[in-house]
């Protein structure tokens, strides 16, 4: 098995539920556990929310792309935006760090993504955008 899918959509908060449903439906063929599905949904939900709030600062004409690739062991996920980018990635990855405390962000998005994934890498350039690469091995049946 070596399936991929790639989906683009605008930076609209309605798409947070949409991308969770897309991710869940795509990995169904791997017979994931309920917890596996929840974790994959959470990973894409966090990354897409970040692209909407931080990357595009709530401008819904921004485009977000999510790519998923499946193999026997699990799933590789990429989430990217062409938004403002991250100046200090190390700081961004710190638990509880948020640049938008006034919006009641918890600063835990990246921490949760790391917790739920097996590998995570962040690439970002100010003014160009951000790409998140995540690998998650599934336990399967």
């Amino acid at each position, binding site marked *: 098995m070596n399936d991929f899918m790639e989906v683009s959509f605008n930076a609209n*908060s*309605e798409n*947070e*539920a949409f991308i*969770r449903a897309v991710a869940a439906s795509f990995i169904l063929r791997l017979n994931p556990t*309920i*917890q596996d599905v*929840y*974790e994959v*949904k*959470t990973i894409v*939900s*966090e990354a897409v*929310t970040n692209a*909407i*709030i931080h990357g595009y600062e709530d401008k819904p004409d921004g485009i977000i792309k999510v790519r998923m690739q499946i193999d026997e062991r699990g799933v590789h996920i990429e989430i990217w935006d062409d938004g403002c980018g991250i100046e200090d990635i190390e700081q961004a990855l710190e638990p509880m760090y948020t640049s938008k405390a006034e*919006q*009641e*962000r*918890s*600063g*835990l*998005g990246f*921490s*949760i993504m790391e*917790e739920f994934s097996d590998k995570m890498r962040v690439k970002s350039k100010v003014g160009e955008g951000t790409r998140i690469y995540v690998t998650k091995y599934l336990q399967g049946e």
Partner: protein
Amino acid sequence: MNVNFDLQKNVLIIQPVCDLDHHHVEQLREVIDYNIGKKEVHHILFDLSEVSFADSSGIGLILGRYKKIGEKKGQAGFINVLESVKAVLKISGVFLLAKEYKNQKAAVEALSKGGRK
């Protein structure tokens, strides 16, 4: 509306009926705070029985309401947290601030008598 409210003694029971993600949290915050603001409300209890998904935006909402009720020296608690949602809440350490109770009766009993130290 995406959320039900109930007042038991001085405890406001907040039952969201939606995913606790950024999209819904934006809609919930104001109406929840309006209700927390009422003078008969001393404590809050999150009933998460109808929440099948929560991420860090949901945690932000919960922590924000915890702060709000703290301004009134009140406490917060949880009931009916699904296993998967619990996994996310655990990462946030929110259970150190607000306890999970067995059921609504026990929660109202404990919270209504308490105060924040």
